[in-house]
């Protein structure tokens, strides 16, 4: 009887000890003052790391005023309360079976075009995208035209056959040519 009891006590103790060890390895210890570490965080889920979700969030602006996209804000500014909520909205919409464009459209419907990190390419926004290129192309065309005009003027002003510097003798020019050839060799 007493043998049985002691055996039971041994197994009970062993089970408790094993449980305690397992618990220690599973649970992390509490830190001294959790308040110092900022807002408590929820564990990361597979959806948080989903490339598709991240791609959508990188197109959408956080509404906290930071100027960052939702993904960057929620993984950078850990004091922001907006980006985690917006992230949950994205996850909810994705969970409803919406594709990337539909999620973006839902955000635009709710927050306006300012929800996008870059304006959509339509209407007046086209000016935003294409005016710089158009201006540069027009300026480039003017520049090419001006250079052509200048070169024509230069050719007209130059005396016929005066391609050589007037103060250079043939011997000097030959020496110059030799030097340049040697340098480039």
């Amino acid at each position, binding site marked *: 009887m007493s043998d049985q009891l002691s055996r039971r006590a041994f197994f009970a103790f062993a089970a408790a000890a094993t449980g305690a060890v397992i618990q220690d390895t599973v649970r992390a*210890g509490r830190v001294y003052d*959790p*308040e110092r570490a900022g807002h408590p965080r929820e*564990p990361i889920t597979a959806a948080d790391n989903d490339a598709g979700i991240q791609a959508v969030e990188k197109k959408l602006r956080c509404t906290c005023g930071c100027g960052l996209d939702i993904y960057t804000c929620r993984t950078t500014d850990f004091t922001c309360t907006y980006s985690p909520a917006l992230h949950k909205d994205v996850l909810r919409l994705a969970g409803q079976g919406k594709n990337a464009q539909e999620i973006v459209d839902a955000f635009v419907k709710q927050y306006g075009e300012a929800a996008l990190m870059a304006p959509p390419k339509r209407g007046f926004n086209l000016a935003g995208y294409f005016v710089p290129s158009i201006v540069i192309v027009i300026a480039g065309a003017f520049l090419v035209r001006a250079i052509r005009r200048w*070169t024509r003027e230069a050719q007209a002003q130059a005396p016929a056959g005066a391609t050589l510097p007037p103060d250079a003798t043939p011997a000097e020019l030959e020496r110059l040519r030799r030097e340049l050839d040697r340098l480039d060799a």
Partner: protein
Amino acid sequence: MTLLGSLSLWLAFLVGLWGAITGFAGGAQGRADLQQSARHATFALFAALAVAVICLEIAIFRHDFSVQYVASRTSRNLPTFYLWSALYSGQEGSLLFWAAVLSLFGVLTQVLTSRRHRIYLPYVAAVTCLVATFFVSVMLFAANPFQRLPFTPMDGSGMNPQLQNPGMVFHPPMLYLGYISITIPFAFAIAALLTKKLDAEWLVAVRKWTLVSWLFLSVGLLIGMWWAYVELGWGGYWAWDPVENAALLPWLVMTAFLHSVMVQEKRGMLKKWNLALIIGAWVLSIFGTFLTRSGVISSVHSFTQSPVGYFFLAFLVVTAVASFTLYATRLPLLEAEATLESMVSREAGFLFNNLLLIGIAFSVLWGTLFPILSEAVRGTKITVGPPFFNQVNIPLGLALLAMTGVGPLIAWRRASLANLRRQFAVPATSGVFVLLILLVAGMRDVGALMAFSIGGFVLGTVVQEFARGTRARHRQYGEVIPVALVQLLSRNRRRYGGYIVHVAIVMLFVAFAGMAFKTETQATLRPGETATLRGPDGHVYSFTHLGISQYNALNRQVTAALVEAQRDGKPIGRLRTEKRQHVDALGRPTFEPSTEVGIMSGLRVDLYVVLAGLVNGTEQAVFRFTINPLVWWVWFGGFVLVIGGLIVLWPGGVVVAVKGSKSSPAQAGYAVKLEAER
């Protein structure tokens, strides 16, 4: 001290006004007494503003919280290192810093300018005094750093934790030095317009000042990028923020000037263009200041919205209109002395380089202002973020990078087909070689492929230039190759220093392109647990959470996570990332907890670890692990850029001839032997 500070500001205001009036009047009437008075006013202005700066610093170091600025920016336990930077961490103090540094530049200009440029100095004194007086008037009437509180708090509010970083001690002064010193070339340009002495002399006077300004602005931008990378924690260094853009605009315009000025020096062309660039760079610097301080566009960098913006807007409009009106009246005096002889010439190359630089500046300005325009036209608020700027500017940037390699290969005046073939063979081969290597290695990102291969082309150009020059010296003077290389560089610092800057630009572009391959993941780890991530360099990196510790340090309570990093299973080091709760002298929390990033920097990749927070107050922590490729090359490229800039700036070497000036004739590169034989 505050009384003395306020009196100094009023004195600076009056002296500055006097300097402006006597400078303009003395220059116009040719009266030596007025000119001398303007010069003395510049010195007095600096003295008065220096006293004001000292007064504010004394108030900061003595913790005089009866001064509003001191109470709102500092606290008793703020580390001494940051007490100094508190001077420019807020609106009022930074205005004082700006005005004081400008007055110092004004003094240096008066003292260091050579005798042959003395004719410009009264007007230069007038312009610097006028601009400094404007800044002083803003302080006196809208943002007084010596404003007192009706009561004296026990402690101040402290400094924003993100500003408590070494980068923020050096970034604002460097950026301000760049911004502020643009006033000096601008002042010389105005002086040249007013005196009608528009030959190449004024160029000689402003060229070095422009380079100084460009160098400071470059360093300011680079330190700002470094600060954003190590402090803000988003894993990047450039976000196309409106205030970043505002600093980039004058840099681009000055870069254009530093190139096109060579055409004026060599050929007496582009006079109108160069003057317009200098005026434009200065106007853009004031525009950037307006953007930062008005709150007209939301930005993480902006100072709080204040009436200061209206002052800057008015100043911007008045000075821009006055400057360009004066410029327009002098256009007939700015006719070119020569004309372009060929589309395929160095001069034309510089023109296309300028087209791209100004085109990028325009697109950045356009993108920055487009939200305002959209709201005005459509009544709809929109966001213009990095995707927009990247889409518009990356092609232009790549074209500009290509021009960096093309420009030095084309001869002045006219390039023959044989010359082009000879010049382009090595660089083009080098670019194609890089492209093929990367394609074989499996790279498929078009933008990165173009950046790397064009980078290879530009490096080929620079190496060819150095090799030819060195070989020429070796043959001519019998110098051993290393000596020949050093001599080549020291004999023509401007040309070869410029090539070193080009190498730095290649490094920067390659590093920027590398960011296309960054990888990252988030993970929740208990002590002992590991997260793995494949890097863009093909290695597998693992991060093991070693534990959390909490301790007090200086003015903050720290929660630190230690992470061991391994590459392909082999330990490579440990990273520490922190949460910092800043507290006041009584131990009360002052700001929201901030994050300190753990970075292990390498030539190929940076390991970048951020502690997002703890789960339920336990050691189970949420991390973000990022592997950033080639970031080290941004900082090294910046270092090389500064070295190249300093070589260009360093006095001595061969004096470069300026067309129309009385300087010695230019002899450089291929001309060395012919000159020696003469």
